[in-house]
């Protein structure tokens, strides 16, 4: 299965977090749809050459977060409301990222008006990069 990219053990981010992020990203983009089955623990461990306990942990944590369902004897499946949950989670993370960025700019003496201008420019820049699709 080409869904997973080999995690980097030396990146500073624990392997299990990297894999969880990969699954969540796949759910957000629709590469994984509700009801899709994730690879079995052993085949995935052998494909990525990482510890199967790590993969078991990934699936457990994802179940805990409601992204997947573990069905006894069958495996792990993307849960029905996974995408909605992911988008809500992304929004929450986005909000806290925004708050901390604004805070850091303020600490450096950037005025509120300048912060707004920076934000507008960033959003517009994103729009342009996306080829004006969202204009």
């Amino acid at each position: 299965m080409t869904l997973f990219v080999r995690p980097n053990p030396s990146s500073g981010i624990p392997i299990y977090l990297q894999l969880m992020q990969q699954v969540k990203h796949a759910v957000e983009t629709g590469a994984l749809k509700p009801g899709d089955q994730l690879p079995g623990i052993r085949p995935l461990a052998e494909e990525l050459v990482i510890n199967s306990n790590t993969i078991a942990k990934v699936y457990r944590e994802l179940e805990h977060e409601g992204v997947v369902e573990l069905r006894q004897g069958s495996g792990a499946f993307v849960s029905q409301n996974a995408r909605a949950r992911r988008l809500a989670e992304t929004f929450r993370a986005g909000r806290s990222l925004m708050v901390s960025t604004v805070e850091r700019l303020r600490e450096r003496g950037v005025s509120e008006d300048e912060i707004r201008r920076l934000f507008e420019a960033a959003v517009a820049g994103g729009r342009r990069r996306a080829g004006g699709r969202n204009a």
Partner: protein
Amino acid sequence: MPDAAVIETSGLEKTYDGVPALRGLDIHVPAGSICGLLGRNGAGKTTTLKILLGMARPTGGTARVFGAPADSPQASVEIRRRVGFVSEEKDLYGSMSVDEIIRFTATFFPRWRTDLEERFVRRFELPRDRKVKALSRGTRTKLALLLALCRGAELLLLDEPTSGLDPAMAEDVLRALVGEVADGRTTILFSSHQITEVDQIADRVAVVDRGRAVLSGPLDELKEGFRRVRLVFDGDAPVPAFRSPGVRRVRRDGAVLSLLTSGGADAVLDEARTLHPVSVDVTPLTLKEIFLETTTED
């Protein structure tokens, strides 16, 4: 079944002719885990493996495998039936062919896994008719691994299993190890200088330094505990006097103060903020850096 310890040592000591090789080693390897044994040359890794196999007797402390004392002759026989060992020497009967040595070894193990034998002969591309002494180093390692795995061993003790192997062969070996543990019937303790490999497949680590375990436990937790903290000040950095435990290697360089902390970065950060730095950067350490930090040149 809860985390039964397949290997448990407590205050393990071993002295050879007045030279202490182990000075009170405590390690714990639960069932179903892959534990990496790291340490500089001469730190005591091979001695530890020998004691676990009953090939050397401790001079103090205890070592238990499957709950039984490793130095009891009766228990040792039983232990060795359930353990597969692959060592650096990879001593195999040179004049036998691959097939002959497999057949020979199989006669000692009634639970020989012929299904695994087929699978690994194919996957490792072992030439059944070739004599062992004519095999390349990498192929000999793979053969040794096959012999250890096919006996249905519940515990594999491996001394540098990928040393001398090219990256592709090493990856084959790692893949086989990971696959065996995935079925939940096998536990692995392997010593290695390839820290990247330990990072990749181990879920536990024991770092041995001068006969003691300076670090031991789940790999993720160990890495969580270590952080590099970099503080930049407006003007010269103050002379630090950190009271938090676990602060190591503090360096002052003009406006920058950098330190390593092993456990409790939060307490260190609280102290750091009272010094009013202009910026605070916290980054993780790689396993290699942690290893270099916690072990010493003899």
